[in-house]
């Protein structure tokens, strides 16, 4: 019943909005010339195992008997229009008169082949095809019982009322049936229902419920924008976001009337095209009083109905357009299946109805309103990577509906991608492609996205798998852009700015419910980004109070609350990605990282990687920048396209890896780790040097493990190999070289990070103290006159031949001497005691 029949249908009668049938199935009945069978009647007939009446609903006048043969189809259950009173009682509307007369013909015929009106689709064929499909479809040949037989049995057991049918299965089994179903859903679904009814009543004759087929997962899903008049009356699948749900509308399905005179109850009267024919006279032979019938509300049957508005998802909207919307009509079970804000995929039948300007007007407004009769609704949210806890992979529950979001093709595609030798490089390139350079930083961020394996020892101790990264750098080095990008990509990211975050805002706070007076715990950003990445911009500008809250989060990954009668420990298994500006906005190379960013070393050491993004005075870089900007202004922007993986794929890739890949350390890799770590530690001991520099701490080895696990994950490898460890070392070293390098010696010094003072600095200070002591011993008498500080500084500078010494250094040295009781400092003068 293509487009040519639909307008007829629309004008035939069901033009007022309230005549939509409750269920999609009944809807199918509203196709032209379809007699409306009472639902209850249908039901009751199904209750009896007798096959004959069960077919009655379906043998619609749609089916036109053809004079040609083929009526010998031995359908045991006799697909013929039944002569049940209801079918006869509801003849199709007058404009479909020829149809109904044909239906009458059908009645006379024994078992003619019936065709869907206006097409050459044989009802019997479709019926047989559906039966075959339901009986014999198997997902793999080993299964003894067909997939749908199993499901039907299950549905009967749980007394469900719908059977979800995967359209992909239909397509695989019988693509002709699939094509027919999509093209003529009203008719095919009606047949589907009949077949189901029939099967169910065979399996369990006492099963009273009416099972409806709900088709989902069509081969192709349409974009809302591309719906056009040719889709009317076809099955479509759409993705979108629910923006509004109407309240639930009880729709009358059957009305019962009572005679006010004699109290006689009429038979249930079924809604026909949105209208109930109120009996004008009492049905009782003895009474027959006129206009005495009144509606008995509590004996009527109602069904739920809801109108939902679906809007295009933002990514489908072309530039400069506004989102399109479409109305959905939900019935029964689907009512309240989605809430506003949900992203859903909807399968349904696209329908149109005419708008009548008014009863009195002669001019018909030639406009149609469209809506979708919803068959199936699935919640989706594909825009972000799927979160999955690497620590608590629940074997039982892991195969939930999440798996449907990544279909097999996609997984294959991802696996194919992972096999590429340069996948690591390609992913790096694809990460924030518009930010150029900073490859090592991007690699670090990539590791953060993939994450390491969290470990929980039986003793209760746990090791985090999340990698924390701090970016420190000059303004205008696109740190914030990187942050924004990661936030967009991360599974459950929260983006906050340090300046605007308070301690409770980050962790959790206790609030009083204004209505009940109960205290409730409200989660803050870190808790909300559990198993995600919490991006904190302007980390340096955060209040100390707020920052101190991070200590616990970043190592123990919990937030403990003890206030207002609530003592709780909340999970905050989040990776922290923070970025900070150096003090005085520009990085001072003469100072250490600690001095530059002014963060407590305790916090700093919790970052696995600290990157310094510096704006170096490099002519090459400047030239590249200049070129870039000149090109930006004067050239076509499209020649800079690179071979990058698009965001969607990247997200899918990362979420798949996070979910399915749990790499283990290989022996080889473990060995390499140990070796590398020892070497790193050893690097601090310079031969012949008394100073001891710590170049690595146990925290580093944990970081290294996490990084190498993440690197293995990037390759979809279940085993951490030697090369991963090597790369992890490289990444760590690059980061450390930038941040932990002691600028006075040029070596890596973990003391810088852990205590804030480098070993060489400490040495220098000690030297200064002893030199000062010597000078004072030489020049000053015990209890003699005091010396001015500046004189002392002059002397000091002379002795240390040219090394730069500041007054503050001298003050520090004198302070330590005075604690020894060697000197007394009074303002600007020094006195030996």
């Amino acid at each position, binding site marked *: 019943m293509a487009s040519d029949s639909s307008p007829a249908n629309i004008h035939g009668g069901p033009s007022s909005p309230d005549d939509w049938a409750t269920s999609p199935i009944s809807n199918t009945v509203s196709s032209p010339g379809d007699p409306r069978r009472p639902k209850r009647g249908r039901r009751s007939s199904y209750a009896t195992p007798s096959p004959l009446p069960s077919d009655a609903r379906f043998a619609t006048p749609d089916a036109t008997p053809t004079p040609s043969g083929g009526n010998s189809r031995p359908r045991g259950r006799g697909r013929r229009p039944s002569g049940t009173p209801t079918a006869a009682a509801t003849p199709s509307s007058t404009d479909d008169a020829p149809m109904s007369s044909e239906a009458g013909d059908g009645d006379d015929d024994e078992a003619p082949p019936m065709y869907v009106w206006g097409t050459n689709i044989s009802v019997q064929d479709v019926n047989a095809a559906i039966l075959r499909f339901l009986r014999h479809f198997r997902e793999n040949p080993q299964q003894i019982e067909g997939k749908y037989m199993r499901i039907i049995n299950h549905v009967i057991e749980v007394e469900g009322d719908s059977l979800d049918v995967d359209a992909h299965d239909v397509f695989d089994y019988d693509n002709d049936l699939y094509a027919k179903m999509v093209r003529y859903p009203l008719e095919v679904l009606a047949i589907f229902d009949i077949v189901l009814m029939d099967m169910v009543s065979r399996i369990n004759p006492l099963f009273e419920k009416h099972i409806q087929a709900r088709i989902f997962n069509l081969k192709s899903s349409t974009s809302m924008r591309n719906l056009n008049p040719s889709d009317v009356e076809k099955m479509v699948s759409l993705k979108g976001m629910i923006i509004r749900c109407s309240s639930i509308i009880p729709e009358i399905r059957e009305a019962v009337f009572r005679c006010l005179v004699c109290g006689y109850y009429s038979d249930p009267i079924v809604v026909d095209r949105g209208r109930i024919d109120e009996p004008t006279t009492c049905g009782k032979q003895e009474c027959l009083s006129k206009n005495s019938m009144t509606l008995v509300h509590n004996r009527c049957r109602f069904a739920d109905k809801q109108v939902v508005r679906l*809007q295009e998802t933002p990514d489908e909207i072309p530039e*400069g*357009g506004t989102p399109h*919307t479409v109305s959905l009509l939900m019935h029964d079970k689907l009512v309240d299946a989605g809430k*506003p804000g949900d992203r859903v995929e909807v399968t349904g039948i696209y329908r149109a109805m005419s708008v009548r300007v008014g009863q009195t007007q*002669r*001019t018909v407004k030639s406009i149609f309103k469209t809506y979708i009769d919803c068959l199936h609704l699935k919640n989706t949210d594909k825009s972000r990577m799927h979160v999955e806890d690497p620590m608590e992979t629940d074997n039982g529950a892991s195969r939930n509906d999440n798996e449907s979001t990544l279909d097999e093709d996609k997984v294959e595609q991802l696996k194919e991608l992972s096999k590429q030798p340069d996948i690591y490089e390609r992913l790096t390139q694809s990460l924030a492609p518009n930010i150029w350079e900073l490859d090592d930083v991007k690699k670090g961020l990539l590791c953060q996205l993939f994450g390491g394996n969290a470990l929980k020892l039986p003793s209760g101790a746990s090791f985090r798998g999340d990698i924390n990264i701090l970016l420190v750098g000059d303004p205008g080095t696109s740190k914030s852009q990187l942050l924004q990008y990661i936030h967009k990509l991360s599974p459950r990211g929260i983006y906050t700015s340090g300046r605007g975050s308070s301690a409770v805002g980050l962790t959790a706070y206790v609030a009083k419910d204004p209505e009940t007076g109960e205290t409730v715990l409200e989660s803050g950003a870190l808790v909300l980004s559990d198993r995600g990445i919490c991006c904190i911009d302007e980390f340096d500008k955060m209040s100390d109070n707020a920052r101190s809250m991070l200590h616990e989060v970043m190592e123990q990954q919990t937030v403990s609350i003890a206030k207002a009668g609530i003592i709780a420990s909340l999970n905050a298994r989040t990776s922290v990605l923070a970025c900070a500006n150096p003090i005085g906005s520009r990085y001072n190379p003469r100072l250490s990282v600690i001095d530059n960013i002014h963060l407590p070393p305790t916090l700093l050491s919790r970052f696995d990687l600290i990157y310094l993004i510096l704006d170096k005075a490099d002519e090459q870089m400047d030239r590249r920048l*200049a070129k870039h900007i000149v090109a*930006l202004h004067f050239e076509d922007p499209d020649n800079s396209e690179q071979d990058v993986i698009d965001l969607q794929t990247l997200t899918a890739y990362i979420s798949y890896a996070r979910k399915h890949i749990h790499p283990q350390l290989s022996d080889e890799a473990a060995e390499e780790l140990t070796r590398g770590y020892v070497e790193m530690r050893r690097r601090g001991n310079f031969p012949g040097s008394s100073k001891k520099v710590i170049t690595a701490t146990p925290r580093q080895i944990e970081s290294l493990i996490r990084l190498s696990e993440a690197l293995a994950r990037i390759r979809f490898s279940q085993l951490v190999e030697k090369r991963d460890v090597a790369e992890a070392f490289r990444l760590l070293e690059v980061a450390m070289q930038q941040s932990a390098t002691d600028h006075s010696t040029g070596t890596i010094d973990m003391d810088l990070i852990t205590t804030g003072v480098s070993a060489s600095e400490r040495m220098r200070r000690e030297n200064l103290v002893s030199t000062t002591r010597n000078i004072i011993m030489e020049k000053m008498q015990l209890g003699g006159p005091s010396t001015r500080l500046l004189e002392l500084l002059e002397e000091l500078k002379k002795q240390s031949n040219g090394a730069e010494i500041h007054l503050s250094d001298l003050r520090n040295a004198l302070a330590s001497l005075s604690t020894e009781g060697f000197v007394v400092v009074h303002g600007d003068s020094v006195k030996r005691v």
Partner: protein
Amino acid sequence: MVGLPYDCLANPLGAVRLTFEKAVASGSDPATLDGKDWGAAELFRQFLFDDDGLSQVPMLNQSTIKWVQPNTLVRFRGMIQDMLGNEYYVGAYKDGNMWRTNKFADTSRSPMDASSDMRIWERRLLYCVPIPGQNSWVESSHEAVRNPYTNSISPQREKRQREDDATMADVDMVEPGHDLEDSPNPKKMREDGMALEPLGLQKIAAEGNLSTLSLVPDAERNSLPCLVKIYDSTESDLKLNDVFEFVGIFTFDPDFTVDRDDNDELADNFCEDTLVCLPPTKVPRLHCVVHRKLAGADFLSGPQLELTPCVIKEVREALLGHLTAVLGNDRVAAQYMLLHLLSRVHARIDSIAVGKLSLNLTCFNKESISVFGNHLKLAMENLLPFTQCLPLTVDYLNTVSLAPKKDYHTNRLESGVLQLAEGTHLTIDETSLQTGTLNSVGCENARVLKNMMDSQKVEYDFTYYKMEMAADVQLLILSEGKSNILPADLVLPLRPSSVDSALGVDGEMLKAWRWYLATMKSLPHSIEPHMQKAVEDDLVAARQADRSLGSQDFSRWLTMGRLMSVSFGETCLSMEHWQMVRELERLRKERLLGNM
């Protein structure tokens, strides 16, 4: 138009019908036509453009709506404020044995038999409003080309005709005889209409405003929204906030009442809520036949000046002089202002809007803002077609809705202050900003403004998500000190030395300046390889000398370089202009340092 059996102007539907019948007769099958054009658009295009019919088509606005006949051809200029999706209608149907069409019409003229064969076609609905911030000279300039029937038609007669027509429309197609009787009318009017002064028209417009527009919710100064129905166009043609001129068939029926007896909730939910709040009684409908996008130059009137370098230089110098006078004899500021007025976003790369040049004039105080602020405002209004002013106060920020917001209840996009057409000039006056607390609305508004400054994008609020829409708005900020809320590309302390109270400008001069700004703005621009090299070297050298220079500064210089050469009417950056920019920047830097 001799020999044509129909009148495109007065009976466009007749023309549509005729071409349709012709097309059907010549063998095209309506069943397969699928709403595509069958030659009607071609006919109108020929009439409008080749036969110069466009100038005869009345412009639809607040004043003309009173006398424009339904089912005639009108023009409407407006900005697409909201897109209301697609509408399905019975495109073609069989009346007996004849195929008829409903294209370009709201209702079918002959009763459609329910059983008759019909085809559903599709059209787009656009909600258009007059361009926000449009200045009065733009309006008057198209009033002048237009042909008003007005004065001779007395109100009584108009009224009678309206009634006539309403009933006519109800019964059947406008009779051909009626057409004949009607068509000479406009011609006659046209002649004496030419003498009408723009001033008088505006008066009419104002009056019209009072009488009918009180019904329309967002009735502004002269706002007449219009629901435009678009046929045969690809989606990418028409974008939100674009300014278009639509020529189409006008249907508007203030006496029309919608019979709404079935007022239950379901009907409300279904009968596009959008259309319920835009009843045909309040918002006229326009079935668009031809549409074209309007650019800056389309709003100008009068003869186009010739594009000789000499003329350009002259005009530029005069305009610069004018701006200098406006800015209290501050020539540096005037130079910057000129560049600012010529700026537009010419490319978007990633999130960067290339070509924008927002200007922050500082050092205003209470006294100077009242003088220069007003001068500036007046100057902008005189020079640019669309200007808006935004007084920034805490109260204002806390209450106004800057970004457009989708109202899901009515399914409409509620316009915000920042829903502006491309090329609008926005002056933000920060001088009256006092200390105070911003509430959440205020914070959001401040963020939206900042985002607009940074990337020329406005976030539209769709409740469940935000959608960024590209904007191209010239932003001028007036403040006491450097504005931190709205970081502009350029910060320049104003140094006025005198106040010129009489800024008399003659009309011819203004026209030339408008023409200059509109034309120069749209010039293409490029760079020669050797110049590119030189610029790059210069940038590198500058950065070597001053580490604090960043990509933003470079970007700004290049934008200014481009605008500088454009202001001379040149399409290629030359060393001379580049040096001028560097010199200007040097002066600005000096001023900034001197100001500290």
